[in-house]
């Protein structure tokens, strides 16, 4: 299992992404846990989608066969490699990178795919942060996933901090109220 930080909320949310699974046993009384179907018995040899954290554990115990999520299927990977900058990551998966890291053990192409995506997109993020807002970048900014959006905010803050300090807006020394003349 990939190393995850236990307390990281983004990591927990990333593991919530659903993956398709192929059940090997009957599950009684859990029909409402999957997507669709209100019946309380789920038979073996049916397809079901479960959150990744659950599916991973059950996969190791051999209760089901976990399959690769459509987000990182072969066809999707080819699309990512072709045009990383125009992908709408927020629509695909809000925690794209973290989910990819968690799935990394299963799908050997993921490190290359993620590396490609990350390097091209983070360069664009850094450029946007340094140039300030412009209209063409608005589409790109709206397509960032949560991690990239946080990076953009941090970079913009770092930029603004130096400028504000140079214009003497960073702090103001005032006389304390307790001092009387």
């Amino acid at each position, binding site marked *: 299992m*990939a*190393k995850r930080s236990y307390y990281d909320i983004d990591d927990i949310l990333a593991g919530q992404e659903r993956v398709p699974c192929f059940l090997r046993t009957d599950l009684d009384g859990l029909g409402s846990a999957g997507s669709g179907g209100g019946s309380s018995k789920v038979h073996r040899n049916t397809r079901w989608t479960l959150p990744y954290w659950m599916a991973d554990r059950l996969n190791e115990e051999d209760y089901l066969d976990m399959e690769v999520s459509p987000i990182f299927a072969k066809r999707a990977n080819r699309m990512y490699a072709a045009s990383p900058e125009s992908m709408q990551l927020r629509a695909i998966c809000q925690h794209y*990178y973290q989910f990819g*890291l968690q799935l*990394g*053990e299963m799908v*050997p192409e*993921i*490190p*290359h795919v*993620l*590396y490609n995506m*990350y*390097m091209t997109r*983070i*360069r664009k993020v*850094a*450029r946007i942060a*340094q140039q300030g807002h412009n209209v063409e970048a608005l589409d790109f900014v709206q397509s960032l996933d949560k991690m990239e959006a946080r*990076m953009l905010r*941090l*970079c913009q*803050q*770092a*930029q603004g*901090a*130096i400028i*504000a*300090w*140079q214009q*003497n807006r*960073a*702090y103001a020394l005032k006389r304390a109220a307790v001092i009387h003349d």
Partner: protein
Amino acid sequence: MAVTSRQREGFTMPELEYVAQCESVTIVPLHRMDRLELVRGTVGPFRPPQKTKVPLWLAVMLKRTNRCRIVAPTWLSFEHLRDLCKREEQPDSLFTRLPFHYLEIAHIILTYAEDDLVDSQGIRRLLQDLREVRQSKTRGGMEMLNPLQLQMDNLSAAEINEIRPLFRHSFDMLRQLDLLASATEDSRQQQQQSQFGELSYSEMDNVMGSSYPL
């Protein structure tokens, strides 16, 4: 004390300014004073018009009470900065040598001792140009990110602080991807080795013997 998210990512500019004030500058005292014994060392005695070296914070304090004039450091002159700018703008050049706290020291002197500088407006303009060129170079440094090592010499404290969140996060991400890639590589090699081990000797004879005509 609560730490803001801004403080967690690095230093704040006022903190860097505070640290920069430990650097020493030369002053020309205007009044006679005895020596001062401070924690970091003894300063003085001040005998005008002899030049003395003092820490920057003390120089600012004396300047504000009109007891000294600050001598601009050698690198904070219009000609020197213009040369540095020219050298910086040449393509494929490394960062030029500047004091580690050059931005902070320049800011402090421009704020409190502007009259001690020659052509302060020109210096401000040159500093701005210098900063922009160096910023575009750091962006070029981003292209060369790898999980092992990246060397950028002669960056100043404020510039490092600016790029810290982005580079730190990128290094982390690249390292994790690297670990993942090598982990899957290891497991794939193990699989290949075990496949060879499963072939029994008779099968191997068949496999290898079939290519030789008997």
